[in-house]
């Protein structure tokens, strides 16, 4: 049982960590809701590629053709990344940029992998989902915004732990799930806050903790580049940058020969942060539910199309990649996806009721102090 002193500390911790992060958590829960359904919303808005139905074994066109087709659309831009969704190998998404390391002026073209038709040109820096996504990830503030939301997420985790500690003293006289509806509105919402909070605790904690990990994504990628990628490309240090880069198709085929049991997740063109000026960085992923989340980089010499290095990602990168499905809820089919949204709404109720309880307690306290001062006035004492 908690002593009166430690109860006070936990209660202070719960109140203040919650108060600081609640507004941001409400924002994250609200913006997270459409993000759970971003594919469905994309279909509704017409921003999602809709490839024609064709037999599954329809031959695919060469990736060099894909690059040419997108290049005709944006002649002033060069290839940056080529990627494919996990469950749809009919579409290639080619991200193009003024230079391989540009941050602005990026364009994306979705090309049908079988016909070469340009299906859609996803807007990377405008539109409804862009706004929602930016609010959710970085508040339009880049890395500082991401880290700030990560810090708010960390406060949420403290608030969840302290909330769980406080659950027991509140429940000493109550049955599990008992909600005292016949008493005041405040007591009813206190009981609901406690029961909804404790039942959703594990889910909320996992989504919160994986969100905090994702806030570090950019820094982890930077660290991996320093830690591993630089080592992998070290033999090319000092060599002159090739003037003409070789075939993308040949590079991807070389990576596929090395890892026949894997699929292409994305390819980084030479000169980007995921490759070197001499290499294509081909990132492969597994085809099993868990391995499909983990990528394996294969570096291919852009001139000779020979694989020069390939190694497993380090543990911190794996942690980041496994944390993503647990944050997005996109890994268990339609059922899990819908429950993710319902649990998200339940946590909005927990957050909202927590905020309400804080206001109600303050109002009650100030009402009591007014009563006390009125009473002292009436009895002739000094207020």
């Amino acid at each position: 049982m908690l002593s009166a002193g430690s109860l006070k500390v936990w209660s202070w911790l719960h109140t203040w960590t919650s108060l600081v992060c609640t507004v941001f958590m409400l924002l994250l829960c609200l913006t997270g809701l459409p993000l759970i359904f971003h594919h469905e919303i994309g279909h509704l808005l017409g921003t999602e590629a809709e490839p024609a139905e064709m037999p599954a074994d329809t031959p695919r066109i060469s990736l060099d053709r894909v690059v040419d087709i997108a290049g005709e659309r944006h002649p002033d831009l060069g290839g940056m990344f080529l990627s494919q969704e996990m469950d749809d190998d009919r579409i290639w998404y080619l991200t193009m940029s003024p230079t391989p390391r540009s941050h602005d002026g990026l364009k994306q073209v979705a090309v049908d992998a079988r016909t070469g038709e340009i299906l859609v040109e996803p807007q990377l820096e405008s539109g409804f989902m862009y706004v929602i996504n930016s609010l959710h990830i970085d508040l339009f503030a880049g890395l500082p915004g991401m880290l700030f939301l990560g810090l708010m997420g960390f406060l949420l985790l403290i608030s969840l732990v302290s909330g769980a500690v406080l659950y027991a003293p509140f429940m000493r006289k109550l049955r599990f799930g008992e909600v005292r509806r016949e008493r005041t509105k405040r007591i009813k919402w206190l009981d609901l806050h406690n029961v909804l909070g404790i039942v959703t605790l594990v889910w909320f904690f996992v989504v919160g903790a994986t969100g905090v990990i994702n806030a570090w994504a950019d820094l982890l990628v930077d660290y991996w580049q320093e830690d591993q990628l630089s080592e992998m490309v070290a033999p090319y240090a000092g060599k002159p940058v090739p003037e003409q880069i070789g075939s993308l198709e040949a590079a991807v085929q070389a990576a596929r020969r090395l890892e026949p049991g894997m699929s292409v997740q994305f390819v980084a063109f030479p000169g980007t942060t995921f490759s070197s000026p001499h290499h294509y960085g081909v990132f492969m992923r597994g085809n099993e539910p868990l391995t499909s989340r983990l990528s394996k980089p294969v570096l291919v010499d852009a001139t000779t199309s020979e694989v020069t290095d390939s190694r497993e990602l380090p543990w911190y990168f794996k942690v980041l990649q496994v944390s993503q499905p647990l944050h997005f809820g996109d890994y268990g089919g339609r059922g899990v996806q819908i429950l993710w949204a319902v649990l998200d709404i339940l946590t909005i109720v927990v957050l909202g009721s927590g905020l309400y309880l804080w206001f109600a307690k303050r109002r009650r306290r100030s009402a009591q102090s007014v009563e006390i001062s009125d009473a002292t006035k009436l009895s002739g004492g000094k207020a």
Partner: protein
Amino acid sequence: MIRPRRGSALNIWLWPVLLGMLSAAGLAGALIGDGWWDIASTAALGVVTLVCFRFWLVPSDATVRAPRR
């Protein structure tokens, strides 16, 4: 059936711990496999959600019978 004493740690924590374990199993299951794993995960997380709505929307007998203090 043994009825744990009201207010005991067992009484307070039994259901929260069971539902927490069910949530954890539901979260992990769909990560391990597809097909039946997804269905099992949906069922586990579905139970957790239903418990929430049960207590939120349906007044329990306990509250009707509970003596006013």
